[in-house]
């Protein structure tokens, strides 16, 4: 229970259906200790969130516990967040939290408390079919979160309940009001939970002080039809994301976008918009929610949250998979997730590791 309306309603619905529900809030970071306490009232899993979750559980009539997972969060999420940026990739901490914490450590803790299943307020659906458990997109296309769930271990699907999958967000808030839940009007959290106000640059600098050195003297390079030309300096490669337009300085006839970064050379490559298009990439850390295919398969691939999936083929090999899209998409970003779909069924996913523009390791 994150302290938001979705997990609150999920708990309330299950309790009403007769499940014996226990509300668990993960304590993931010590905001007070890190000196960023006061501003993050909205933060998912913050102290205020835990208090809200507790109040909601009290209303529903179920027990609520806060579970200390600070060390695990540091180990699985924060360290990865930092090392990905250092490696020139853009991480996806929420996916790692789902994969390693919610459906990993938290699941195990819940089992230890005598629970048989784990439920969340994610917008997605679990379906039973053909003797197996499947994960499908939610009914509400705007809120669908299947993209972020590709890392769930397949064997955990049978123990997973997603009560909100068939509901629209507006309905969820209505249900929350009907139940008298304190979180009915709580706004959705948009930011990364452990970084207040989205200032990930400050966070990186604080955790990796020597990053400050690379802020000077990085080469900003433009890719043109005549080859590459140096166009100035940048503020350090980790602070640029593929597809980014802001912060590149002015003086270009048309807008320029970040195409790739080169950590070794501390170089950022920019170019015109059409250069952002790509149709082939490699993925690793692949997780399958179907029997792992040995042969190439043709599926739909989603490379960004809330962006439509595109048809393509996945060719698995020993170290991951090569993916070829049938039509190009913009800004395929190393570090981000590629989620694989068979129509609306999530069948797996992985981490984008290499694109036509960026070879990262």
């Amino acid at each position: 229970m994150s302290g938001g309306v979705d997990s609150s309603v999920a708990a309330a619905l299950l309790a009403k259906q007769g499940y014996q529900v226990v509300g668990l809030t993960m304590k993931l970071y010590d905001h007070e200790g890190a000196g960023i306490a006061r501003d993050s009232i909205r933060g998912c899993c913050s102290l205020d969130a835990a208090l809200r979750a507790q109040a909601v559980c009290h209303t529903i009539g179920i027990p609520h516990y806060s579970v200390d997972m600070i060390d695990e969060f540091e180990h699985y999420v924060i360290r990865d967040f930092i090392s990905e940026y250092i490696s020139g990739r853009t991480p996806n901490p929420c996916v790692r939290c789902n994969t390693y914490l919610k459906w990993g450590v938290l699941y195990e803790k819940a089992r230890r408390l005598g629970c048989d299943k784990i439920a969340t307020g994610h917008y997605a659906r679990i379906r039973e079919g053909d003797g197996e458990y499947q994960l499908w997109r939610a009914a509400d296309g705007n809120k669908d979160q299947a993209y972020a769930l590709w890392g769930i271990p397949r064997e955990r699907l049978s123990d997973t309940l997603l009560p909100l999958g068939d509901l629209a967000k507006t309905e969820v808030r209505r249900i929350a009001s009907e139940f008298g839940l304190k979180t009915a009007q709580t706004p959705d959290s948009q930011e990364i939970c452990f970084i207040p106000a989205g200032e990930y640059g400050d966070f990186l600098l604080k955790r990796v002080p020597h990053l400050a050195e690379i802020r000077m003297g990085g080469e900003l390079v433009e890719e043109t039809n005549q080859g590459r030309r140096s166009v100035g300096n940048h503020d350090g490669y980790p602070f640029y994301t593929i597809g980014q337009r802001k912060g590149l300085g002015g003086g270009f006839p048309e807008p320029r976008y970040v195409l790739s970064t080169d950590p070794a050379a501390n170089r950022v490559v920019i170019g015109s918009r059409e250069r952002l298009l790509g149709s082939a990439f490699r993925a690793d850390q692949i997780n399958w929610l179907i029997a792992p295919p040995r042969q190439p398969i043709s599926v739909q691939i989603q490379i960004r949250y809330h962006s439509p999936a595109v048809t393509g083929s996945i060719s698995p090999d020993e170290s991951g998979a090569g993916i070829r899209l049938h039509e190009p998409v913009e800004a395929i970003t190393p570090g981000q997730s590629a989620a694989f779909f068979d129509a609306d069924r999530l069948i797996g996913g992985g981490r984008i590791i290499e694109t036509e523009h960026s070879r990262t390791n």
Partner: protein
Amino acid sequence: MKRYYFDHSATTRVDAAVTEAMMKAMRENYGNPSSIHGFGREARVALEDARERIARILNCDPAELFFTSGGTEADNLALMGVMEANRDKGDHLIVSKIEHHAVLETARFLEQHGFRVSYVSPDSYGIIQPDEVMRAIIPGTVLISIMHANNEVGTINPIGKIGQIAREQGILFHTDAVQSFGKLPTDVKDLNVDMLSLSGHKIYGPKGVGAIYIRKGVKLSRRTQGGHQEREMRTGTENLPGAIGLSVAAQICQSKMAAESEHLTRLRDRFWEGLKSRLPDIHLNGHPTERLPGLVNISFEGLEGEALMLTLDMKGLAVSTGSACSSGQTSASHVLLAMGIPPQIAQGSIRFSLGRENDDESVDYALEVVPQVVENFRAMAF
């Protein structure tokens, strides 16, 4: 589902007589004790009466007793106040490793602000031995603070002997008696202490009030500025209902002490013996006899304290791991670790603290539920 409360060391229910006395004070005696008029005088009389009752229990002069907002404030006042005011005598403080966080964190704070602190280790029973304290004394030692009874394992320290050493060396001695006041005799002369902290909500009194004994002659700088209350030692309008509640609760404890101690010791021992006969691989932490009546801290091998505590809660049994103040954190108890208990064993510890909410029925229930839960956990593959 019926619930059973085994967490009296965390806090207690307010006694009915205490509630009545406080309600009466709130309804009828609402003047500010510092006001000159009749309403104020009546309030003043009641406040001083409350003070006197507690002073009598401690065997001190009422002028040496000051009301605070609780045990934490009293501890802070004792340590910060003395160290700051006696800088000319030295800058060294001695505390034990098993003190409550209110003392430990204050000691750490002082360390970060130019003072030196030594942390004395307990023996394997959790007892702070006088010669260990003696060993820590250096020329600049100004204050020693050792708790009377430990809140996590219940072990009682030889405060009288330690106080004697402090006296001989000309060093001030404070004891945190939050867990012992009302349960054990706390005569400040017998204990040889210069300061003593106590708290209302541990003795069936209200939360938000406590007191500190400060022997006349001890130099102390106050923590609150503004006002003249409590002889300027702890200013701010006095919590008269709280003080009255505290004094009534203290007197009730005093009159019930012998009988209650015997009763709780019997229940506690029955519980421990019962568990021991039903479960292998469990250990009693702390001293077997030099402990508070009613408190048992037990390590269950192979288990995680947090999971055990939550499961017991779901079955209606309220207990704690470590101390209440560190809830939400699953690091092993600093007290158990200081006693030399291995971290994995320390992680599987639960504190059961019996009190007025318990009787034979609650012990029966606990003896039924705890072994069941422990066996289930041990059978799990996780």
